[in-house]
């Protein structure tokens, strides 16, 4: 949102004069996102910008032929949003976040931060293609890092809370957050639990590290929002979404929270510090 606003401003648009942003939060729920889309169509919105696979799916089903610029989508082809990355074909285009693909990297960084870590908990909705893809990558990666994956399937917020209740310092050495909107929306509770039970958490979004998570590694979502503004501008000027290729992020940021590390009794190794884009003191 921040990035989109910034990006539109950089392209010379003035909010209120040239455009109005109608913002609706889907909170990882298909029905909420779907209702919001219906409401926005009634308000005669011209271009949709969606964040996340679930929200994009909801908007796609409801928005008919209106152009949609998606961001934060892991697998746009397998999710059925585009025909190919080069020529999306339909009324959708946007930005993938490469998060599933980089899950192994997050596990590797977690292991380097906490070498003693053996069992990693991953909470996800197996129906979300992005989450499923990320967990598949995680399954392939853990053995190489001599770790084990504990998979916990959830469908809604309550089940996430339940899964978090089960976390203790004995059966879970660390938590890996995968790009699952339902789980990510409860980031605060995950951080709370992590502090209580001294279990480190690896995120993919900087926001959660700023709020006390141990570390994150992923593309800058602000940057992705700014890129989305570029596509909104092009579509407004007559470009067809089906002809705008799906772009992939180029910048990945590693952010570490030193305070959290200290609270968890972790010494950050030099090999992590040397590549950290930001260290929150």
């Amino acid at each position: 949102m921040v990035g989109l606003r910034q990006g539109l401003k950089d392209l010379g648009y003035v909010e209120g004069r040239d455009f109005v942003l109608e913002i609706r939060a889907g909170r990882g729920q298909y029905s909420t996102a779907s209702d919001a889309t219906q409401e926005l169509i009634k308000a005669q919105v011209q271009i949709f910008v969606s964040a996340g696979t679930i929200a994009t799916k909801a908007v796609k089903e409801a928005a008919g032929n209106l152009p949609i610029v998606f961001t934060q989508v892991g697998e746009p082809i397998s999710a059925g949003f585009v025909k190919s990355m080069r020529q999306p074909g339909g009324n959708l285009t946007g930005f993938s976040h490469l998060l599933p693909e980089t899950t192994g990297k997050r596990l590797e960084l977690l292991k380097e931060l906490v070498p003693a870590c053996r069992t990693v908990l991953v909470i996800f909705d197996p129906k979300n293609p992005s989450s499923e893809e990320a967990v598949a990558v995680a399954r392939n990666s853990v053995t190489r890092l001599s770790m084990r994956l504990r998979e916990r399937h959830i469908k809604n917020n309550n089940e996430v809370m339940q899964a978090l209740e089960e976390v203790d310092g004995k059966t879970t050495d660390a938590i890996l957050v995968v790009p699952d909107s339902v789980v990510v929306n409860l980031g605060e509770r995950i951080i709370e639990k992590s502090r209580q039970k001294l279990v480190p958490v690896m995120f993919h979004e900087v926001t959660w590290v700023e709020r006390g998570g141990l570390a994150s590694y992923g593309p800058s979502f602000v940057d992705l929002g700014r890129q989305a503004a570029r596509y909104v501008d092009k579509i407004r000027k007559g470009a067809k979404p089906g002809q705008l290729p799906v772009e992939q992020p180029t910048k990945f940021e590693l952010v570490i929270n030193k305070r959290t590390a200290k609270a968890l009794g972790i010494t950050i190794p030099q090999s992590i510090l040397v590549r950290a884009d930001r260290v929150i003191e």
Partner: protein
Amino acid sequence: MTPRWRLFGKYAFFIIALVSAALLASGGVSLYFSYRENQEHLVTLQREKALAAATRIEQYISDIEHQLGWTALPQVGTGANPVEQRRYEYLKLLRQAPAITEVVWIDASGREQLRVSRLAMDVVGAGTNYSKDPKVAGAKAGKTWYSPVYFRKETEPYMTISRPAGGAGGGITIAEVNLKFVWEVVSRIRIGKAGLAYVVNSEGTLIAHPDISLVLQKTDLSKLTQVAAARGEGEGAPIARNLKGEDVLTAHAGIPTLNWTVFVELPLAEAFAPLYASILRIGLLLLAGLVLSMLASVYLARLMANPIRALQQGAARIGAGNLDQRIEVHTGDELEALSEHFNKMPAI
């Protein structure tokens, strides 16, 4: 019959014709040369801009190459494991050079020992034999090797750069460079108001353009006359059609190490605006000159015709027997002498 007008008209016509012809000829010649010089000047200017753009892009790539070179500097604290040390250097490299997505170290025998990536997990001691691979063979001679441009995941333009690794264990360092970053370099190059710079590879495929979507679509530009000409097929003219079919003033400069060509283009209307202004200026001056010379011609013709008219009228009066009339001509030349002869006639 009014003979005065005939002579005046004749004089006026000849003088105007002469002066106008001279003015038009000199104006035309100067217009032509000014057009040629201005056009040449604009083309030279474009060529210089293309060269500057090529230099900037070459600089950008050679900076990456230098950063690759730093990983080969002798490392402090020698006791440590050389692979571990190298990994540390590569991690620093990824932090410093955002365009590099992956770095691989191939040892002296051509086997992969280390792979550090932004996207995938690091691999130590894979041992895969790359000794026959052009990436390795190309850098063996101690030179830096650049691969042709390729596309990852269909849309992301990439290039491989490999160079001797130096340091402990020797071997070769291979880096996968994301060329989307060249896009940032190209986007920052300003050519006039509506002009732009772009880069094509040796096949004529677009690899950098301010509109990144065109690059990600792997746009083939080899059909454009200017691109074909730069690749040595057909004649290159400074004025050509661009991708959108607009007439543009175009120039190019090569980056020989990479086999890339940088093009700059400027819409013709914008490029030739100063030229049109100077043509208009010359035209207006010519028009003013013509009007002025016509006025002068009329005055001159009258100056020449008047004394002859006076002579003619005087002669007519003398002929009519009016002998005490003097003919007043004061031109100081043969006409005045002639009038004096007439004036003396009655006295004879």
